[in-house]
């Protein structure tokens, strides 16, 4: 009995002395507590390329943090000290973790941290880090490859624009939907019926609406030449303003400013199906000979295209929304698929500068095709023959095209 008591006393003394060696551990350890070592090498540093609002905290996990059911470490608690104030618990995370991203911070306020490993009934605290403050960088080097690609494509656009400006001919293949524009406008002129132009239901902050308004410029010039009527109901006030300006400019270019009227473009409502109900009504009452459905469309695409089809109008549609393209293909005579919508304005105008930009974009597509072929072949043969060189090429390409 005496021996057992002495043994417990020695163990108690040993634990007590050990805890005093580390001043940041708890000074007294109850023998019933599951003691664990604290995490070490805790470092807080600025998180790169953010808006000066994040700090990254990393540490080496406690040596008692082992994989398995018998892991004594149940997790980590992260404490933040703001401008030398009181510690504040900001997160409790799972065992095995070795980093944490503290968000929502402010520039020029200094933060320090400490991390505690926790068992069921014990908490071992690390040293406190140096004080750091979030910083804002001028350049985001994580996007260097994106910048490089943008630079190559933009440079080729500029090159081809200059090339075309010198009077050199640029070849662009025929786009069926756009070849039909002349015929569609001619048909409306012959029939003495109006042309209906629907620019989608999005505002001017959508590139599809921008593309539609650009095409409108070319269409309106022809309409002015032929003295055909155009009707353009819109669902956004800004689109109405932009469309009026565009048609007005087209009529002035055609030398017929007197024929322009603000009534050609009218606002209906921002409400999606309210707009559709009104446009359907216009279709069946005014029976336009030609309908352009160009821009951003959603659930209304089939309703509009089907009503246009039922009145026998020739319909030219175009959108970059993959979910709506099937409906246009099913119900319209010609459909501009995605990229063709954006190419349309250059194609219709035939202006060297716009055609130059189209050619420049093709360079981007060429780069994409080359990268895909090289990447897929190196990935396939690298995996089959286990050639490290090929696998490195694949890995490099994957890194090159990664956007953080």
């Amino acid at each position, binding site marked *: 009995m005496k021996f057992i008591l002495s043994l417990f006393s020695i163990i108690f003394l040993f634990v007590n002395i050990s805890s005093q060696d580390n001043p940041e551990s708890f000074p007294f350890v109850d023998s019933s507590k599951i003691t664990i070592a604290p995490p070490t090498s805790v470092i807080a540093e600025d998180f790169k390329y953010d808006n000066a609002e994040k700090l990254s905290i990393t540490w080496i996990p406690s040596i008692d943090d082992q994989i398995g059911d018998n892991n004594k470490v149940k997790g980590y608690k992260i404490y933040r000290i703001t401008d030398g104030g009181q510690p504040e618990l900001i997160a409790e995370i799972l065992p095995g973790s070795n980093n944490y991203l503290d968000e929502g911070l402010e520039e020029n306020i200094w933060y320090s941290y400490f991390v505690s490993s926790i068992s069921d009934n014990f908490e071992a605290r690390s040293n406190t880090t140096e004080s750091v403050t979030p910083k804002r960088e001028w350049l985001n080097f994580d996007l260097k490859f994106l910048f490089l690609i943008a630079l190559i494509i933009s440079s080729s656009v500029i090159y081809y624009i200059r090339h075309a400006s010198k009077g050199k001919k640029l*070849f662009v293949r025929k786009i069926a939907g756009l070849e039909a524009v002349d015929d569609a406008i001619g048909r409306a002129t012959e029939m003495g019926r109006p042309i209906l132009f629907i620019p989608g239901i999005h505002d001017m902050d959508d590139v599809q609406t921008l593309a539609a308004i650009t095409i409108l410029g070319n269409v309106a010039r022809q309409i002015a030449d032929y003295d055909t009527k155009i009707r353009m109901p819109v669902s956004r006030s800004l689109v109405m303003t932009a469309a009026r300006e565009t048609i007005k400019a087209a009529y002035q270019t055609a030398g017929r400013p007197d024929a322009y009227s603000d009534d050609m473009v009218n606002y209906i*409502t*921002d409400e999606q199906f*309210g707009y559709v109900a009104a446009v359907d009504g216009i279709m069946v009452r005014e029976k336009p000979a030609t309908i352009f459905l160009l821009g951003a469309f959603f659930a209304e695409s089939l309703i509009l295209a089907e009503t246009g089809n039922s009145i026998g109008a020739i319909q030219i549609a175009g959108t970059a929304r993959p979910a709506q393209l*099937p409906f246009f293909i099913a119900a319209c005579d010609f459909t501009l698929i995605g990229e063709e919508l954006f190419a349309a304005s250059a194609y219709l105008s035939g202006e060297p500068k716009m055609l130059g930009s189209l050619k420049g974009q093709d360079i981007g*597509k060429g780069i994409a095709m080359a990268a*895909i072929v090289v990447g897929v072949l190196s990935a396939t043969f*690298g995996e089959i023959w286990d050639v490290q060189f090929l696998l490195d090429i694949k890995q490099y390409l994957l890194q090159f095209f990664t956007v953080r």
Partner: protein
Amino acid sequence: MEHFALWVAAFLTLGIISFLYKDNPWYKVTEAIFVGISAGYWVVVLFWDNFYGKFWVGKDNDSMLYVGGLLGLLMLMRLIPKIGWISRWPLAFIVGATSGLWMMNYFASNIMVQIQGTIVPLFSANFGEGMNAGYSTVIGNLVIFIGTFTGLVYFFFSKEHKGVYGVGARVGIFFLMITFGAAFGYTVMSRMSLLIGRLDFLFGDWLGMIK
């Protein structure tokens, strides 16, 4: 009051559906109510959410809002014909800013991420062994590679679709049409659920025939 609202909703629903027969006065009334109420509703929402909720309340904390306010004010210059041309400035700002912002977004999502997602091995020992060599993965990766590559061929405008290139473009358009077919079927099914919802309202909530 609840009964009255139910009858109004049913009257308007049937008015819109009557368009399936042909354009008629009932549809015209419903259309006018729908357009009028929704236009008025959006004026109120935009005034209170944007002008009051964002600009008026937040202007003291964020001076950048004054720039937006000024651009909005310039838009109203259209109401004065002599200086109406000033309203082109905010329009030019919106168009320019939109193009610039979207350009980098499209470079990232439509070029970089798309290429990255297409660089896949067509065959690998990691797919499995023997007859279980992960044929679905092999076929899936082949579809991704050929579909993306030939799709790009189709949208390449600098070359006529003739010869081998024409074959590539044709394969590309096949891929597009198969995708559109699948999307068509999927969307039609979701539209059916909308129709069922309306019929459920008419026969359930209104007529009480569905319990």
